[in-house]
């Protein structure tokens, strides 16, 4: 498409402004986290690096005192990672199997069951959070990873996407597999799962980020600091900023925030490549 020089320049200006708008807050948080708290308190937010990167990040990662709790950022990162991965992997597995049953097996009420699952899309977690808490607590799963992950694992969105995808897989593949002596489980593992790699990657990305960013549920579920996720940790640190008449811990709060954003960004970057590659190459 032909574009005049001026138009092209205007487009780029808009794009650059947009990028700055998105990136600048992250940049400011990042560079401000490398100053001492006294310097930041006196001079306000910074636009360039200070000299205390290792000191601040080291304290946050390994020293429980810096996060105002009995847990280090490293432990919270681990907790978040467990939640994010458990959430994403669990959802992929459960929703794939649910969709497999709905699409490939003829059983009574398959259609109504699907619509029941689908209609739960309308209800966010918050609607059932009290009963869910009740169930988990009476199962004795409070303050455990299982209790943190299990109640969130069923996914109407995932089931719906996999259902749509499976329905687009040609019937002949199933028939060919049947003639090749593959039973239901073989067909699922040997054929359907490899074909769904792109869908799995897509759902995994989305679910990992959603799981990582869970706030209300982990907050309710965990009373033990050892199980705090990093999202809760950030909140705790900001809460305690003005406690005790000390100079606020801004650099460390910023450092924690930056660290909380890194894993989801990595997951998106890594899996997006696979996702795009898969989209281009797969032919059903």
């Amino acid at each position, binding site marked *: 498409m032909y574009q005049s020089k001026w138009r092209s320049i205007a487009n780029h200006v808009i794009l650059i402004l947009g990028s700055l708008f998105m990136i600048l807050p992250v940049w400011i948080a990042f560079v401000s986290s490398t100053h001492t708290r006294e310097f930041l308190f006196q001079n306000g937010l910074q636009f360039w690096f200070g000299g205390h990167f290792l000191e601040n990040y080291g304290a946050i990662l390994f020293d429980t005192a810096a996060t105002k709790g009995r847990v280090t950022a490293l432990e919270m990162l681990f907790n978040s990672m467990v939640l994010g991965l458990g959430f994403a992997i669990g959802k992929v597995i459960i929703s794939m199997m649910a969709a497999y049953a709905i699409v490939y097996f003829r059983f009574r009420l398959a259609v109504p069951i699907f619509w029941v699952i689908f209609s739960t899309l309308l209800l966010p977690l918050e609607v059932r959070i009290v009963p869910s808490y009740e169930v988990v607590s009476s199962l004795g799963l409070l303050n455990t990873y299982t209790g943190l992950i299990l109640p969130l694992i069923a996914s109407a969105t995932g089931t719906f996407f996999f259902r749509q995808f499976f329905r687009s897989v040609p019937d002949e593949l199933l028939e060919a597999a049947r003639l090749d002596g593959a039973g239901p489980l073989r067909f699922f593992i040997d054929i359907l799962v490899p074909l769904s790699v792109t869908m799995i990657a897509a759902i995994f990305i989305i679910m990992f980020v959603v799981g990582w960013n869970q706030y209300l549920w982990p907050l309710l579920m965990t009373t033990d600091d050892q199980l705090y996720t990093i999202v809760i940790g950030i909140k705790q640190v900001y809460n305690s900023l003005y406690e005790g008449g000390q100079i606020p811990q801004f650099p460390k709060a910023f450092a924690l925030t930056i660290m909380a954003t890194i894993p989801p960004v990595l997951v998106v970057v890594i899996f997006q490549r696979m996702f795009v590659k898969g989209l281009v190459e797969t032919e*059903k």
Partner: protein
Amino acid sequence: MATVTLNRAEKTYDNGFKALHGIDLHIGDGEFTVLVGPSGCGKSTLLRMIAGLESITNGEIKIDDRVVNNVAPADRDIAMVFQNYALYPHMTNYANMAYGLKNRGYSKVEIDTRVRDAAKILQLDDYLERKPQQLSGGQRQRVAMGRAIVREPKVFLFDEPLSNLDAKLRVDMRLEIKNLQQRLGITSVYVTHDQVEAMTLADRLIVMNAGVAEQIGTPIEIYEKPASLFVASFIGSPSMNFLNGTVSDDKSHVVIGDGSKINLDHQIESGRELVVGVRPEHFTLTVDGSGALKARVRMIESLGAETLVYLEFGEKNESVTLRMQGTHQFAKGQELALATTTDLVHLFDRDSGKRL
């Protein structure tokens, strides 16, 4: 090596649609049988019933002497080639061919020998490590056939395997399939809607229409003695000319349209109304003699080796087609006199459509 026998095989779908009204069929050992018919005639259903992909409502299907009505597809010892190849896209061609053997617990060595042998036969040696989407349509179809061959099944089933290929490739693959089947001598059932494929491939042809086998016979039998109007119109291209006529008082000929005559050697009561069928290639031009069919040229198609002339005759402008060897020129509206010989004329009952 096997025979396939169908006894009154019927299929009724859950929604009540009756796809097959009782098919009787015996396919001999090593025979190449082609099911041909228009779409919706039940030919694919029949094939899928033999494969076990569709259940059978009534009657029985036997492979050799074993009734397979309730046997799973994988245990029927058959292999099928699909129209859209149905190759597993994420597997290499080698893995595609090996998959069925692997599931049946063959040893790695055995699998390797079989796959490489099949690849040699199908000239796929160089493509085994590639994936299906890196191959052309013809090559993919060969992989699909390879997948069938490695199993050394009792019966090959083909479900319109050539209809996704372009015209030239289709002719090549047709020869290749015929060649392969003759070399391996495996009993085969082949479904197609293309009558040229049907005529060229078949040892025996089954013409199907609306869930019924209209005629079963060798291609030449069916061409020379079509059992009904449907078969006559379906086999042969361009299709047979049908002319409504009445048997003359002296039973020596049929009177058509505005008094043209077609001679008869059958004994049919005078005055009976019937349909006369003449293939386009069985008309000859005559010097305007009495009784010949006089028709006006409407359109000409020159194919080089032959010329198709579309004409119309009588007051109702009924159409008739003439096929001539070589190239010919006629003016539009020019009147031609067409004649034929008695042994090339087909007679059908006007009501039932059956051959007389």
